């Protein structure tokens, strides 16, 4: 495990999440450096520290954010819409994680191309519909961080 997480790293983490929520996309380290008027190299290093601590997840071998749970930087089968905004979630659970994190009402469009099927869910005033449907968790908790993309 890497270096100690500092107050600066936690500030970077918060700004990444704020940026994702506000702009519906992952920030580059330069975006955060510009926002905070700080050196981009410090932010780049912080991204890697946060990655080592599972507080966000970088594309392998890069400085680019792939995952800041529940947000995905790349399109997935789980789209979450609210007003004029939409985000990609990493999985079915994270599609409910976005309205939980942002405390908003949403429409979730879940597509299952292998089954040629799609499901819509609504979160409305803190309640979710289709409560009787199931979500499958393939991996036990102790293996969630072995390969986060698969999880």
């Amino acid at each position, binding site marked *: 495990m890497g270096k100690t*997480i500092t107050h600066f790293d*936690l*500030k970077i*983490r*918060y700004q990444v*999440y*704020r940026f994702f*929520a506000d702009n519906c996309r992952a920030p580059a380290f330069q975006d955060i450096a510009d926002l905070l008027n700080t050196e981009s190299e410090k932010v780049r290093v912080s991204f890697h520290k946060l990655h080592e*601590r*599972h*507080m966000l997840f970088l594309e392998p071998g890069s400085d680019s954010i792939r995952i800041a*749970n*529940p947000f995905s930087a790349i399109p997935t089968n789980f789209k979450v819409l609210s007003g004029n905004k939409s985000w990609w979630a990493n999985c*079915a*659970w994270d599609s*409910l*994680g*976005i*309205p*939980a*994190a*942002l*405390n908003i009402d949403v429409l979730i469009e879940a597509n299952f191309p292998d089954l040629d099927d799609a499901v819509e*869910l609504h*979160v409305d005033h803190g309640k*979710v519909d*289709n*409560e*009787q*449907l*199931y*979500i*499958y*968790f*393939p*991996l*036990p*908790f*102790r*293996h969630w961080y072995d390969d986060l993309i698969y999880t």
Partner: protein
Amino acid sequence: MPAGELLTIGQVWELSKLWYRDRLSPDFKGRTIAEAHQMFEKIGLNTAFWRFES
């Protein structure tokens, strides 16, 4: 690898509210395994699948 688990949408929504409610807070510092276990237990997820130790 053990088999996975099925949760209802209602259960996952309850878990999501616990797991993600503070993710947009500037004070979020991650969570310990013990804290994660407490969240699981709060909504009745008590099996070995939801424990970090094997």
